């Protein structure tokens, strides 16, 4: 059972579930194509397998549990992109991947192929518990109370095909972090779990409920400061049962748990959950995982066998002294690792002119090779639509940089203004009101000079093509929301949102702008920030100090000349 693999190894039971589900969908597709199933009968079945009908084609959303991939899985995704799509895939803010050009007739073959690598599309749509997301640096960064992936995997096993929670009032999203620095946006999730130790050193979860974005954004409320880890699943069951019982089903715009929590008040909701929890604990079949089951999950993650290395690498130091591009990449795309001599490499999927989150089949195959050779066969997907190589030796960074550069993935802009989150928008999405990707590329085009981008520093721009907020605009330092004004695209800008441990919803800047004024407006925001900022301030710091005033003046003076 124990393995040297750094990621979870699926067992025969997992494989059987995935294969059975693929076979079941093949039968459903055949019946739909023959006319034995009507579209109304088929649509819920297709959605339960991650297939949406978009503007130009079907879209298949494939689950990447807590954003963790190995080389085998990445190659399977590359094959789907190459054989059944137009040669690329789109990594999403749910740490999943979407293929925008698939055909319904091919879907059974795609799911069969994914199943060979232990992948599937189960619960990537529908009113169920969706992919649980986590910190992309899990297990690699200093200061974690535990490895959150253990708990994410346990949640995956508990929530997959859970008979009681597959028909909730609306979709349901859980995020887990074990670090005080929140890289998983847990405060804007239906449930956010912060794994940490209490004053007695006992491991537990701080539980937040009722966060979310979409039409009505809320920051989650803490309903329990310390939930002993062994009680996680009885408590989650209590929350979900409370939601299932009290959540609204009469109005889909008011059906998310955030509306219930806001309506009742967090304290009252917490009391309901505690009362339900007492009942759950008396169920004849316990909800909580036995200790041995959790130990088994932990064991199936194996142990990364790190080498004992010096904290500094002479080879790396020399290479970056010799190569200014590598030096810039190192400044912007590397994060400290918990083990001496190692580093976390962030791979930006935000190259100039590229749709944020897109990767070609060739890039995916090459990334699989790089991960296999240099990062203990692990790749992470981030909710900011980038990838991470979590365990790279400092000695290998120059080689990794060269390998990434060869496939166009060495863009040194992590966290900067060009590192934009954008949903597919009206280029693809049937629900969108406006395009998001061209706004992102237009902004990027104004900051192609890496010196200027570095001068601006951290600035998180997030763009959604409609109020569903797949592009997380509410929590962008600069949020951009596409709206439809009598059939024309306009964009509302918000400032000061953030998704981290100080999460807040952004403030509206002013009247919506037409498409061709948005990138210029962002440029004006940057200029105002550079004028206003004090030594060491990031954009968000300056905004929180000076407020909307200078930014509003800058944008509307420029955007609406007399």
């Amino acid at each position, binding site marked *: 059972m124990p393995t040297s693999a750094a990621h979870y190894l699926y067992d025969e039971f997992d494989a059987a579930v995935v294969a059975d589900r693929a076979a079941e969908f093949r039968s459903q597709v055949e019946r739909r194509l023959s006319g034995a199933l009507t579209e109304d009968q088929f649509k819920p079945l297709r959605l339960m397998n991650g297939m949406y009908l978009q503007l130009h084609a079907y879209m298949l959303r494939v689950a990447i549990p807590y954003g963790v991939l190995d080389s085998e899985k990445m190659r399977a995704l590359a094959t789907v992109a190459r054989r059944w799509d137009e040669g690329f895939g789109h990594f999403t803010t749910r740490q999943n991947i979407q293929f925008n050009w698939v055909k319904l007739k091919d879907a059974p073959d795609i799911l069969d192929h994914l199943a060979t690598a232990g992948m599937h599309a189960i619960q990537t749509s529908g009113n169920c518990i969706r992919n649980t997301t986590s910190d992309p640096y899990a297990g690699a960064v200093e200061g974690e109370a535990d490895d959150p992936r253990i708990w994410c995997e346990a949640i995956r096993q508990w929530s997959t095909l859970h008979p009681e929670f597959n028909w909730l009032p609306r979709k349901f999203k859980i995020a887990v972090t074990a670090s005080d620095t929140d890289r998983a946006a847990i405060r804007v999730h239906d449930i956010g779990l912060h794994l940490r130790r209490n004053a007695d050193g006992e491991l537990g979860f701080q539980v937040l409920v009722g966060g979310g974005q979409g039409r009505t954004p809320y920051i989650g409320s803490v309903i329990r400061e310390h939930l002993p880890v062994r009680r996680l699943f009885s408590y989650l069951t209590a929350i979900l049962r409370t939601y299932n019982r009290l959540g609204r089903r009469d109005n889909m715009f008011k059906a998310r748990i955030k509306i219930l929590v806001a309506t009742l008040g967090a304290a009252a909701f917490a009391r309901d959950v505690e009362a339900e929890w007492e009942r759950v604990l008396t169920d004849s079949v316990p909800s909580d995982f036995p200790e041995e089951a959790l130990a088994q999950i932990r064991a199936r993650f194996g142990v990364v066998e790190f080498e004992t290395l010096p904290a500094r690498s002479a080879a790396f130091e020399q290479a970056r002294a010799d190569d200014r591009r590598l030096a810039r990449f190192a400044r912007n795309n590397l994060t400290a690792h918990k083990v001496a001599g190692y580093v976390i490499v962030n791979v930006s999927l935000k190259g100039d002119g590229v*749709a944020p989150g897109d990767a070609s089949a060739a890039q995916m195959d090459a990334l699989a090779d790089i991960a296999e050779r240099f990062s203990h066969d692990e790749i992470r997907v981030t909710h900011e639509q980038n990838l991470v190589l979590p365990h790279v030796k400092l000695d290998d960074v120059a080689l990794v940089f060269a390998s990434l550069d060869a496939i166009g993935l060495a863009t040194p802009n992590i966290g900067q203004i060009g590192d934009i989150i954008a949903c597919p928008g009206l*280029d693809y999405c049937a629900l969108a009101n406006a395009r998001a990707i061209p706004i992102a590329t237009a902004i990027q085009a104004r900051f192609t000079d890496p010196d200027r981008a570095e001068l601006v520093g951290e600035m998180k721009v997030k763009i959604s093509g409609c109020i569903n907020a797949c592009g997380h605009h509410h929590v962008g330092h600069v949020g951009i929301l596409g709206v439809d004004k009598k059939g024309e695209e306009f964009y509302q800008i918000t400032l000061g949102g953030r998704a981290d441990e100080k999460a807040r919803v952004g403030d509206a800047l002013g009247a919506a702008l037409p498409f061709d004024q948005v990138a210029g407006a962002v440029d004006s925001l940057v200029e105002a920030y550079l004028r206003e900022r004090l030594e060491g301030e990031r954009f968000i710091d300056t905004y929180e100090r000076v407020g909307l005033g200078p930014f509003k003046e800058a944008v509307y003076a420029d955007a609406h000349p007399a």
Partner: protein
Amino acid sequence: MSDERLQAITANDLREGCVVFRAGDGWTAQLADADLFGDPAHGEAALETAKAETTRVVDVYLIDLTLEGGQPVPLSYRERIRALGPPVHPDLGKQTVGGPAIEAIAHATGGARSTGRLSLIKRK
């Protein structure tokens, strides 16, 4: 832009998912080859026939058009994107065939709601 208001019937192909337009008793990939209806009553009647083809197409609805240089062009920006392909990927979708019909759609301006599509979304 012509003052003439026309309609066409659009859908997505069930098997492939691609955008199609009603032409005679079948469906075509290009709007330029679609049947155009000047009389709303004729469009509604043809829509009912088209909707019956449940093993060939899904999400069938009428779109509003005008003529630009003699070519049919959707009034709605959303429908222009459906008739062309994603603007961010000019190498993909129907726009790759080029020609005057595609050029007319690509260079159209202005907007209007896609009324047929809107009613579909409301039903979802």
